[in-house]
């Protein structure tokens, strides 16, 4: 079994018409997981204290002030706030933290946070790339600072580099962050030379047009580092935009590649539980199929 966190608040984060990070993504993900034997839970609102593990109070205050009473406001060229956006982002963070608590309490071996907006581009005080709050990094810090784990790992297979997670965990000695991503592509960071303040960050950029073979080679390298790291918890930033059908990138992965990468992660995690958090993925049909492949592998569910 796997615990699935979601909430209708995800569908009240409304981006402008034609925006790829759209409300329909949430429905596509839930529809794709329909019928699977998952423990379904509502995503709770995060406490401010959890947000403040990664973002300063003035950033949260600025966001609260920026939320419009109606319509939408742009925080940058990509990132929008509608009246329900901050609530949705706070429930994504709340679900990430609740998932950490649940798996560390032994309630399940794995959990998936099916919420939007995504989070891995959000830096300390900078919303960007459709992201407002650093959900995965906040969950990692909660595991370290609240639960007192010695080591955690955050693994990011979204096609875009998780610059926000990297920014938030750059100096965190006990957090291993690894990412594969297309390069060149947004946001431009994620060169192999970016290794964190303690050498605990591993960036493996992939060339445009590359497919499953290159991806699996990179993830075999990451899995070996993960085994050596032996964390008490693995957090996955699960973006599905490396799929060949995705409109926002040019890698050529398919559903079986997402399943294989998930298998490598679960295997290398060993006894550590896994919390996966939805990031990108903009072709609705490919997103649905890929999420299903990811979750059935994560939960050891017969497909």
């Amino acid at each position: 079994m796997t615990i699935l966190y979601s909430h209708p608040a995800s569908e009240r984060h409304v981006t402008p018409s034609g925006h790829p990070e759209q409300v329909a993504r949430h429905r596509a993900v839930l529809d794709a997981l329909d019928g699977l034997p998952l423990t379904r839970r509502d995503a709770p609102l995060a406490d401010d204290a959890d947000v403040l593990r990664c973002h300063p109070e003035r950033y949260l205050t600025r966001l609260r002030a920026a939320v419009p009473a109606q319509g939408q406001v742009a925080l940058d060229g990509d990132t929008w706030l509608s009246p329900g956006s901050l609530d949705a982002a706070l429930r994504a963070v709340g679900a990430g933290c609740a998932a950490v608590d649940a798996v560390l309490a032994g309630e399940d071996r794995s959990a998936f946070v099916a919420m939007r907006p995504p989070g891995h581009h959000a830096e300390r005080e900078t919303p960007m790339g459709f992201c407002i709050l650093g959900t995965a990094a906040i969950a990692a810090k909660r595991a370290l600072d609240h639960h007192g784990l010695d080591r955690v790992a955050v693994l990011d297979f979204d096609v875009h580099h998780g610059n926000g997670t990297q920014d938030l965990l750059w100096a965190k000695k006990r957090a291993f962050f690894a990412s594969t991503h297309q390069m060149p592509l947004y946001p431009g960071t994620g060169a192999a030379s970016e290794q964190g303040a303690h050498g605990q960050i591993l960036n493996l950029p992939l060339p445009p047009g590359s497919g499953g073979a290159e991806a699996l080679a990179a993830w075999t390298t990451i899995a070996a580092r993960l085994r050596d790291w032996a964390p008490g918890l693995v957090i996955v930033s699960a973006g599905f935009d490396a799929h060949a059908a995705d409109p926002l990138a040019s890698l050529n992965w398919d559903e079986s590649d997402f399943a294989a990468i998930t298998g490598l992660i679960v295997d290398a995690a060993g006894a550590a539980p896994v919390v996966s958090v939805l990031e990108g993925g903009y072709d609705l049909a490919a997103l649905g199929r890929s999420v299903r492949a990811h979750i059935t592998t994560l939960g050891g569910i017969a497909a």
Partner: protein
Amino acid sequence: MSDAEIDSMSFEDAMKELESVVGKLEHGDATLEQSIALYERGARLRAHCERRLRQAEERVEKIMLSASGEPAGTTPVEGL
């Protein structure tokens, strides 16, 4: 700008724009939504630059042939 417009660009103009595209991608100046379109334009510009270089090489080879007057094959030119 369309593919046809790229086809009519000089090598220098295409190279200049390609450098600007690469700079934008490397410095994160593009938005996430624009980024893929920018990358694809960069790929087309690169292909165009490579085509222009090949054409120039072919012209140089022809010139060398007619200068020697001997149809003894072509000599690729270094440094283009």
